[in-house]
């Protein structure tokens, strides 16, 4: 059974086909590398998988489900609720003055007790015959509006993230002005249970969870070797450490798969070696790794499988040795940048 299945994914930007009917299959606990020349569409595949971009065509199935909001009974109920409320608001707004005059102005004498039941009856009477049109139009606008808004947000990054897909970014996107610890805590945010009132009134759960989550975050930082930097602002970290922090933040999400976008870029040989070790340890935690990488040393050493993209299409796939020997790959990729090969 595959964990992540990308089925004929196509991404088109205007006239440009960035990804052309790519099909991938990632099994649980694999380390797979996605390689290819610049502009081959690797990052675009990541963006589609993580819901940043909506695919032009094709399906992304993760853990047996498409990574998008499902149209459930609850959603339909929410639509009807929004529609109902808009209808009520529309009826009220359309008849506000007349109803008010009949119910309040007509029944209230200054400083006398207010006859509530009579007022309600007058309101009802005034509404008779004047509610259907605003109610129907309100219902229509509410339901279609809710549907339109929902439809546009079906494929959002948070859906993929909640399903268990974590990622890092090619050009590091940390929360620069937050501490290293806060960055990791943001990664585990979906697993926290502190609600509005817990936080607002500082109820016991708030204190308990703060202690617990800080401990867990520090543990994650220890795993990537950053436990001594916890109090630093993320932007003050060395470049290599920023890459590690991004991985730590992704790991804090407790994902099933982690997508690493050029994790070795800009690292020195010693750091790349440490990175390879880290990726192996991530796999040992039972997490699948899919990475984009230009550093062939890293790719060939740790990958179970290598997939090669060129001009948005898959041109080769297999274990590192096979791919390295593939003439199409050599021509498209290794041949052109022989310095790297």
């Amino acid at each position: 059974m595959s964990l992540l299945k990308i089925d004929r994914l196509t991404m088109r930007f205007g006239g440009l086909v960035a990804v052309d009917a790519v099909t991938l299959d990632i099994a649980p606990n694999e380390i797979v590398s996605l390689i290819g020349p610049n502009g081959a569409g690797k990052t675009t595949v990541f963006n589609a998988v993580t819901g940043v971009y909506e695919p032009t065509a094709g399906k992304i199935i993760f853990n047996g489900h498409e990574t998008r909001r499902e149209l459930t009974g609850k959603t339909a109920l929410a639509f009807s609720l929004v529609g109902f409320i808009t209808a009520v608001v529309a009826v009220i707004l359309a008849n506000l003055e007349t109803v008010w005059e009949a119910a309040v102005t007509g029944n209230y004498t200054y400083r006398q007790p207010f006859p509530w039941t009579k007022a309600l009856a007058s309101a009802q009477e005034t509404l008779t015959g004047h509610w259907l049109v605003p109610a129907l139009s309100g219902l229509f606008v509410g339901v279609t509006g809710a549907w339109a808004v929902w439809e546009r947000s079906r494929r959002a990054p948070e859906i993929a993230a909640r399903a268990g897909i974590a990622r890092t970014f090619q050009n590091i996107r940390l929360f620069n002005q937050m501490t290293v610890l806060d960055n990791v805590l943001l990664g585990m945010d979906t697993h926290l249970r502190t609600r509005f009132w817990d936080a607002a009134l500082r109820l016991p759960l708030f204190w308990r969870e703060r202690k617990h989550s800080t401990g867990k975050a520090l543990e994650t930082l220890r795993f990537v070797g950053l436990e001594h930097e916890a109090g630093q602002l993320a932007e003050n970290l060395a470049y290599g450490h920023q890459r590690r922090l991004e991985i730590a933040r992704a790991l804090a999400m407790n994902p099933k798969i982690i997508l690493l976008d050029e994790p070795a870029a800009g690292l020195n040989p010693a750091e790349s070696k440490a990175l390879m070790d880290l990726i192996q340890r991530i796999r040992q935690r039972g997490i699948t790794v899919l990475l984009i990488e230009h550093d062939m040393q890293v790719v060939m050493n740790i990958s179970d499988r290598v997939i090669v993209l060129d001009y948005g299409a898959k041109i080769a796939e297999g274990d590192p040795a096979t791919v390295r020997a593939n003439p199409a790959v050599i021509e498209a990729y290794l041949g052109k940048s022989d310095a790297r090969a």
Partner: protein
Amino acid sequence: MSKLKFHWAFLLIAAFIPAISPHFAELLRPIFVMAILALGLNILTGFTGILNLGVAAFMAVGAYSYAILTCDIYPFQLNFGCATGTTVLIGLLAGLALGLPTIRLRGDYLAIVTLGFGEIVQDTLKNLDVITKGTQGINPLPPPPFSVYYLFLAFLTLVVLLNRNLQRSRIGRTWIAIREDELAASCMGINPMKMKLLAFSLGAAQCALAGALWASYLGSSGEPGNYDFQVSIIALCIVIVGGMGNIAGVLLGALVVMGFNSIVLETLTNFLKSHQIISSSNVFTAPGNWKYLLFGLALILMMRFRPEGLLPSKQTKAELHHHEPPKN
């Protein structure tokens, strides 16, 4: 801990002000209301990075709801506590109603939507004169149950505590993350829309609270024109002058901006008039006629030379001073 004591010291001083200078205490009351309003805006603009140009509208919703609920020309006649509570709830719902369809919009679009909302709330209040009494406003309202000064101080303290608790919790952390990088935050599984909507309706509720307090202070709902764009801009000035995202900064901003607006300018005008330095017929010499210019220049110069405000939050300061030009 020493910082905490500092806060209590401030509160203590504030508590004794009426005893020391009743006049100053009187001047402080509207400042407290504006501080609550600006703190509501601060949740949006300071924490979450959403610009709301229509906070005055939510204040108006609050003031009118409170007035309708308490005034004895209407049958509801709730007491102060119930009316304020209901008003906050109405503010929350108003924020939710405006936020639900529009919160997904890009920042600038949302700013315009809030601006437009500010306009139409005024128009609606004017049009519904059967209910809102048009430009007369709803009055008289019953006076607040006890000393206005302490009541407002208590509400301000509550709001400050609530905002601080939220800021230093998971919720504030996600808000700031959304301000810094919405896409990265959503890739962590955070639903930015949900969090923004929370900020939006919570901010609206605080603005409505400010409106309710304002109405109880005036003894009237005021007229729709009292809640125009300028009020929203003054609130924005407070947040920006004080320091976006920093609660203490916003309080300082309220003191500075409102102090300038309602104390310095007015004193100056009265002084000049009483000494017959200016005549009321010459528009150039009345300081009040230069108010917009001064506010405008303050905004421009602040943005140019000290965009982090007088008392910036650590984060905004860092954001500004180590900001690299965007790469793409």
